[in-house]
């Protein structure tokens, strides 16, 4: 018995929604598709447009109800731009430079350390002893107890903690043979992303306070690089798996060291992944709010804090906020445009196998 081919349908529905041939859209479909796309374009762009027009408004234009079109509804004014960029220019400029420095360096560090770890986990077999890790945790606990409870200086307790770790790892841990594998290390690194920053924030605050690095670039850079590291490991690990091992081995036969293989061969091939990952990490660092709130006050203040600070005692300064938000968006959008062709592909490889 053979199944009959369905007849060519007729009628209004078919006319509107059955394409004439594959690869094009029927008129009805086409209208719906473009309507949907247009709608979301408005949803995305209108808030940004509103930011733009608000940044040119005087307080009165904001407070007296909605005014949409500059020159038509209201007379645009540069007062907010002038105020933030010229009058108190230094106060805007400093957080901006802070943000640039912190976001850029922490991204570079996170991507570098993260992709090195991801590459190692994709290529080298690790078998750490479970007991060694336990001894490390014991060492850390000892260190914390010494510092917090017994009031020993932090550097002394660090040495004691490390000594305890070394002692246990060299003696007791040798006797137990349970080992972890690459998958466990990878899972452990990635799972760090689940840690709510709010748990991390207070101890890190105390730690930096103890070693006198609170409200400095270096504290912010290290913190951001660490919290974003798991994302890099996650996305890059599968990217490296997708690069044929033959290339590594070929380079090794040619006489390259592991570092030459990594920087000469593997990293250039992982460019889409690196680009997409860097962009994501950069955006997260650039926009981060909570940790900045804990770790910086004046010297290392970043842009999100400055934006939030516009909600002053005089009420929210909408025009100033708009200017600052626009100033924050512009560079990342430009970078995103430059990296655009890598982003989709780069994120995909990580997500497909992740």
């Amino acid at each position: 018995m053979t199944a009959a081919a369905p007849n060519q349908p007729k009628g209004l529905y078919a006319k509107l929604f059955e394409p004439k041939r594959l690869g094009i859209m029927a008129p009805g479909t086409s209208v719906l598709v473009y309507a949907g796309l247009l709608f979301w374009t408005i949803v995305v762009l209108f808030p940004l447009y509103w930011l733009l027009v608000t940044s040119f408004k005087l307080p009165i234009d904001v407070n007296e109800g909605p005014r949409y079109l500059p020159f038509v509804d209201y007379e645009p004014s540069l007062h907010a731009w002038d105020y933030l960029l010229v009058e108190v220019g230094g106060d805007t400029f400093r957080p901006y430079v802070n943000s640039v420095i912190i976001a850029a360096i922490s991204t570079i560090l996170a991507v570098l350390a993260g992709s090195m770890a991801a590459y190692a986990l994709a290529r080298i077999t690790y078998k750490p002893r479970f007991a060694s890790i336990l001894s490390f945790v014991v060492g850390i606990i000892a260190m914390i107890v010494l510092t917090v409870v017994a009031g020993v200086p932090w550097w002394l307790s660090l040495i004691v903690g490390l000594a305890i770790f070394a002692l246990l790892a060299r003696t007791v841990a040798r006797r137990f043979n349970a080992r972890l594998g690459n998958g466990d290390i990878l899972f452990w690194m990635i799972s760090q992303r689940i840690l709510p920053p709010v748990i991390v924030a207070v101890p890190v605050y105390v730690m930096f306070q103890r070693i006198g690095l609170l409200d400095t670039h270096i504290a912010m850079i290290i913190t951001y690089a660490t919290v974003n590291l798991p994302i890099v490991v996650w996305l890059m690990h599968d990217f490296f798996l997708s690069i044929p091992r033959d290339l590594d081995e070929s380079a090794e036969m040619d006489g390259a060291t592991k570092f030459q293989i990594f920087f000469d061969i593997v990293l250039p091939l992982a460019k889409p992944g690196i680009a997409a990952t860097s962009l994501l990490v950069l955006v997260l660092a650039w926009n981060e709010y909570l940790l900045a709130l804990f770790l910086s006050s004046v010297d290392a203040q970043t842009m999100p804090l400055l934006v939030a600070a516009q909600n002053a005692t005089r009420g929210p300064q909408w025009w100033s906020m708009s200017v600052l938000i626009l100033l924050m968006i512009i560079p990342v959008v430009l970078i995103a445009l430059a990296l655009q062709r890598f982003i989709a592909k780069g994120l995909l490889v990580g997500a497909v196998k992740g």
Partner: protein
Amino acid sequence: MSSDRVNTIGASATAPQALGAGRGMSAWLDRHSSKVFILPAVIVILAFSIFPLIVSAYLSLTRFRLAPGGFELRWAGFRNFDRLLFGSEQYHFLGTFGAVGWFGWIVMLGGAGLIIWWLVRYWISGRARVLGTIGRLITATVGFGIVVLATVTLSEGGAFGSLMVTLFYVTVGCSIQFAIALGLALLCAKPIRGRAFFRVVFFMPLMVTPVGIAYMFRMLADMSKGPLEPIWSLFGFADVAWANDAWAARMVVVIGDSWQWIAFIFIVMLAALESQPRDQIEAAQLDGAGRWQVFRDVTWPTIVPVAATVMLIRVIEAFKIIDLPNVLTNGGPGIATESMTLHAFFAWRTQDLGGSAAIGYMLLFVAVVICVSFFNLVVQRQKARFT
């Protein structure tokens, strides 16, 4: 950690140039490369995750007090947790419990029934393992707890605490985001003109700082002075203050969050759609499959592993939400939009470090159970099935 091979000099008569000797800095690095590659990541993660985790655990068991010349930490046992779950902070964390009506009982019994059925099905499937059983029991317990909590806080006279608010943001927000993002990706995967333009535009919200988004939506959602004022007036809503209504305020937070994160899910789903093999779709179309059948039988199976992973990333990040409720509503009205992170932040600001750490730990617990369950029960399975 890895093999213990020895480097020696490539002493060969025929080689035109032998490699440098296995000495010096670069040779040392090469020999220890397996450690050098991974140690930076391991050390910073240990220092910034394990260390704070232990300190926080300790803090959550103490009371913090400013004392002359610094502060003191007094051992408090589980009193911080006790306060959150049963004591003075219960309304804030778990919520206010209402009187459960007959409908509530049905929901709870139904939830219990579903969870038990799910467990029994696993046990009789013949694949049951000890670890799997333990994991599923934890998942089931937390799942049932959430069902009960949802029922009692939604009942007459009840109100959400920060735990339920967070779960609301995660579940409702992520579902909305996934549905819209997938729809947009499907639209963009059609043979349209200007795909590059739409792709860039739809990706843009991800670039905006959440604090900025919060202020932006405060402006937009302003009923009397915002740009949508004519629409509100038309429907007679101009005088309604959404910020005074718990559900409206929560929805505004979800909308702001969605505006940003749809961009991320969209871009990944579009890439997944674009990378699916064309010949499969063409084969299905030749076989006479309709639009919906092609999606269900061909497209969906190829994109679902990507969807599962990207949603896992999204859920993990969603648990950390703070900027939007903090700026949009300051957690209000009352505590109606207060997420757990915000709750912990407020506690920290009032120098209740122990309470803050305890909330953080509760958040960690819920997030880990839900994310690991999602990973094991959804992501892994989808990948095993389709790749």
